[in-house]
């Protein structure tokens, strides 16, 4: 940490001198720096940069501006508050979906006066063509979904599309609703001339969004986009005004380059950094803007980091064992180890982000405080709402951070509470199940064998996960369990371990929510026992923990029966699910995935923050397009 700080301090002096001289220069021929915003593309280098066909099965890097500022679809759900205070955003659709009574038909009213960048009007024909083309090519993205769901799609006029569904589906619209991404609309007039839509490169890409491709690196590192002259004929321009930057450059960079470039004000938005690098950069760059103005800085994504327990494997199929594992953890230690304390804790099975605080965290506080588990005939209340305050205090003492002192701010940024660190209670729970300790104090299974846990986690790809898992293993060791970690590549963690259930314990995530909508069916639908797959077979959706219960099935069935916009019932069912997850503890929720997105206010201002949470600042999200009308030049 000190080394990084020292290194950045030395650089600051040199870089600031150079920056002043270069500030007004053209960044590239014909593009001055003050009309250009430079954004990191975390995908790095696109292996097939000529290919802009986002619907093709191997389409490269969606995050090079392609899905953010060139594509568009029917609806967006913002993980935060939304650009006008409502996270539900009608984009190409003029209004929310209209379903018939039994959810076998969905009608979509399209917005009029929207044009493709080549001047052709967007109409119902584009939507129909998209569905029919993808349905006819199941190897293409979203193809199998349409084949399974859609019986017929037709228009009643140029701006009204009707989907006849093969079976009742109250969530059909979610395929066209962006949460990070969604099924984008194809330009019929372009793709209908393509010999094969799968191998068609869609180069240059014709945009529905407010920017068009100006040039791109044939080697795959950067993409330059230019604001459309007719930006007001796009949904973003029409609804929210002119996008600020005339040019947008997405560029893939190494972590070191990101820091160095932003110090020189040659990179306006960094997607994510390791906590140490981010904190050092924030301290050294007076123009750096983060989601929270002070500790913990990072944006909590609607993704829940958790200790995943394979509920099919012994002894993780025993609720008392799962609770014992929970109570033998000091979560503040895990937060300090993985995020330098800059973590937003969650005791329940949804990420503590956006409106989830209002819908789930706040209302469940009294239930959580009253909740108890039976330990040796006595009731034990495991919930502790003082833990975020303890975390703030420890981060202040250990790292010297200026932590918030306001109670509401601490809850908003560090979470509402977590489970008590109670190894004595955990020991009693294990003993109640026949576990014993050997002479060295190590826990033995009831059959006398040594209890060993190998925690599978990401290795080089995401150090915060490796560090968190290491701390968990250390704490379980301290408790007497022979635990260790096994770091694996990000690319194989899901396909080779989590999806086929080839693990006992893992530190990863399987719960991702809309963030801006309370409907948990987004991830929960695949947890219904109809889709249950045993370990050895690929899991359906995100039920990697192989959890099933009749109560859960009922919750899912009821959730799918109600209207997507019936918030009251949706939240009530969501809370039922969360209570069930606390009682059974099939996985141990830990914290949200916090992203250290750092924006530089040297050239541009108006970035979203927790004080003005109009959208997600994380720039690879398609939702980040809502940032552009809000960005204003600083005049430098």
């Amino acid at each position, binding site marked *: 940490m000190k080394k990084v700080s020292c290194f950045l301090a030395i650089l600051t002096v040199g870089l600031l001198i150079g920056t002043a001289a270069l500030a007004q220069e053209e960044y590239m021929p014909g593009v001055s720096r003050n009309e250009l915003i430079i954004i990191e593309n975390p995908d790095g*280098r696109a292996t097939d*940069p000529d290919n802009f066909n986002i619907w093709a099965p*191997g389409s490269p890097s969606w995050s090079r501006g392609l899905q953010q500022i060139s594509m568009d679809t029917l609806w967006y759900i913002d993980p935060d508050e939304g650009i006008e205070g409502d996270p539900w955003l009608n984009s190409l659709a003029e209004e929310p979906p209209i379903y018939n009574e039994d959810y076998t038909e969905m009608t979509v009213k399209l917005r009029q006066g929207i044009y493709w960048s080549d001047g052709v009007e967007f109409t119902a024909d584009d939507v129909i063509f998209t569905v029919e083309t993808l349905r006819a090519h199941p*190897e293409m993205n979203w193809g199998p*979904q349409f084949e399974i769901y859609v019986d017929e799609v037709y228009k009643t006029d140029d701006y009204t599309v009707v989907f006849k569904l093969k079976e009742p589906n109250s969530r059909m619209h979610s395929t066209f609703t962006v949460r990070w991404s*969604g099924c984008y609309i194809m330009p019929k007039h372009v793709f209908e001339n393509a010999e094969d839509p799968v191998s068609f490169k869609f180069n240059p890409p014709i945009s529905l969004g407010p920017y068009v491709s100006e040039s791109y*690196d044939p*080697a795959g590192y950067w993409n330059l986009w230019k604001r459309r002259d007719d930006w007001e004929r796009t949904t973003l321009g029409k609804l929210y005004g002119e996008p600020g930057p005339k040019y947008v450059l997405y560029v893939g960079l190494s972590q070191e380059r990101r820091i160095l*470039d932003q110090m020189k004000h040659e990179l306006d938005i960094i997607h994510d950094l390791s906590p140490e690098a981010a904190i050092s950069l924030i301290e050294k760059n007076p123009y750096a803007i983060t989601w929270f103005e002070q500790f913990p800085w990072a944006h909590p994504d609607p993704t829940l980091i958790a200790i995943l327990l394979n509920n099919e494997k012994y002894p993780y199929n025993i609720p008392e064992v799962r609770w014992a594992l929970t109570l033998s953890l000091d979560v503040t230690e895990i937060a300090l180890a993985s995020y330098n304390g800059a973590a937003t804790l969650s005791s329940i099975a949804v990420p503590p982000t956006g409106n989830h605080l209002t819908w789930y965290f706040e209302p469940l506080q009294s239930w959580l405080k009253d909740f108890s588990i039976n330990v040796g005939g006595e009731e034990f209340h495991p919930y502790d709402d003082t833990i975020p305050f303890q975390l703030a205090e420890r981060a202040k003492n250990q790292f010297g951070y200026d932590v918030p002192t306001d109670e509401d701010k601490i809850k908003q940024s560090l979470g509402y509470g977590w489970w008590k660190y109670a190894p004595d209670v955990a020991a009693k729970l294990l003993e109640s199940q026949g576990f014993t300790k050997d002479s060295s104090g190590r826990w033995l299974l009831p059959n006398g064998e040594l209890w060993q846990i190998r925690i599978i986690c990401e290795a080089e790809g995401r150090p915060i996960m490796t560090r968190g898992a290491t701390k968990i293993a250390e704490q379980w060791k301290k408790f007497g369990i022979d635990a260790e970690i096994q770091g694996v590549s990000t690319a194989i963690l899901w396909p080779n371990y989590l999806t086929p259930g080839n693990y006992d314990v893992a530190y990863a995530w399987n719960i991702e929510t809309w963030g801006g909508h309370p409907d948990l069916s987004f*991830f929960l639908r695949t947890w219904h026992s109809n889709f249950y797959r045993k370990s050895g077979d690929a899991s359906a959706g995100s039920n990697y923990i192989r959890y099933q219960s009749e109560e859960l099935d009922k919750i899912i069935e009821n959730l799918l029966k109600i209207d997507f916009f019936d918030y009251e019932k949706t939240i009530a069912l969501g809370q039922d699910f969360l209570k069930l997850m606390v009682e059974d503890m099939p996985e141990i929720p830990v914290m949200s995935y916090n992203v250290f997105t750092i924006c530089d206010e040297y050239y541009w201002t108006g970035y979203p923050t927790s004080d003005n949470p109009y959208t997600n600042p994380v720039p690879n999200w398609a939702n980040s397009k809502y940032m552009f009308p809000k960005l204003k030049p600083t005049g430098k």
Partner: protein
Amino acid sequence: MVSGKVVGYVIGRIFQCLVVIFISTTVVFIIPRMATDMSPIESAISRAMAQGQYTDPRAVEQLRNTLEVAYGLEGTVFDQYIKFWGNILRGDLGPSFSSFPTPVMDLIRNSLPWTVGLLLVTTVLSWVIGNILGGIVGCNRNKRWAKGLEVTINALRPIPYYIMALLLLIVFSYILPLFPSGGAYPIGTVPRRDWSFFADVLKHAFLPGLSLLLVGIGGWFQGMRTLVSHIMGEDYVVYAKLANLNKKDVFSNYIMRNAMLPQITGLALQLGMIFSGTLITEIVFNYPGLGLLSYNAILRSDYNLIMGVTILSIVAVSFGTLIIDLIYPLLDPRIAY
């Protein structure tokens, strides 16, 4: 007049080279398929699921079956193997799984010139400079300046490449902004055939090239210095010196010519290796090349792309050693076929 024995040797050696290529390619075909951690279909599904969207479990199942056919992975491994050789003989390495359906050859063609351009130049230059300096220092090993040079080169040699590259980047691109901080050419320009673009390419290749040169020279230098030190004690060198032959002749004809032989073999192998790319250079300097392409191919279980890049290396190394074997008699008169 070429003797029949020579012709027999050349044909035999070429046959041996082809057998090596055949066996190596077969091994490269089998290894990814045996690795339990690799599945191109599951990898593709995982990438699709990671797009943060709800996907119906039935749709996932259907995608699994569809991709198996699209990727040409249906049938037994033997069926796939036969099909693979059929395609190879037609010059088709198949589609990339991770960039489906773009042909592997297109992806390689996109990266190959940058890798070859950078590594060919730096490999040859570091070989030439390392050997010349190693030879000179070996001949003058007791002189102060030679010791100083040896200490300097040996001090640079153990610096981890990543640190060296980063250091050059910080010093020459950020503190003293003399060179671009990355890429193969300026952002906003597109490759074209003119001198100004060529100058841009050279300027952008300078720092990555220098980093490779600095770490590359050390090995050749040390090898040559040791060889020369050893040869300096040989009877024929001592005799030549006693006979008062011209010092330059002794250095070039008696010492360097003998010391060069193992270094030439080393160069041939090294030149073959350039087709694997250089991953860290590409990452630090945002330089396009085969290194990152193959790394991503491995991470994404892209069998065809892994095979494409590896086969390129196999062929290059095999033909490199074949050529060296065939021209050895020209370099060393003691060898005759």
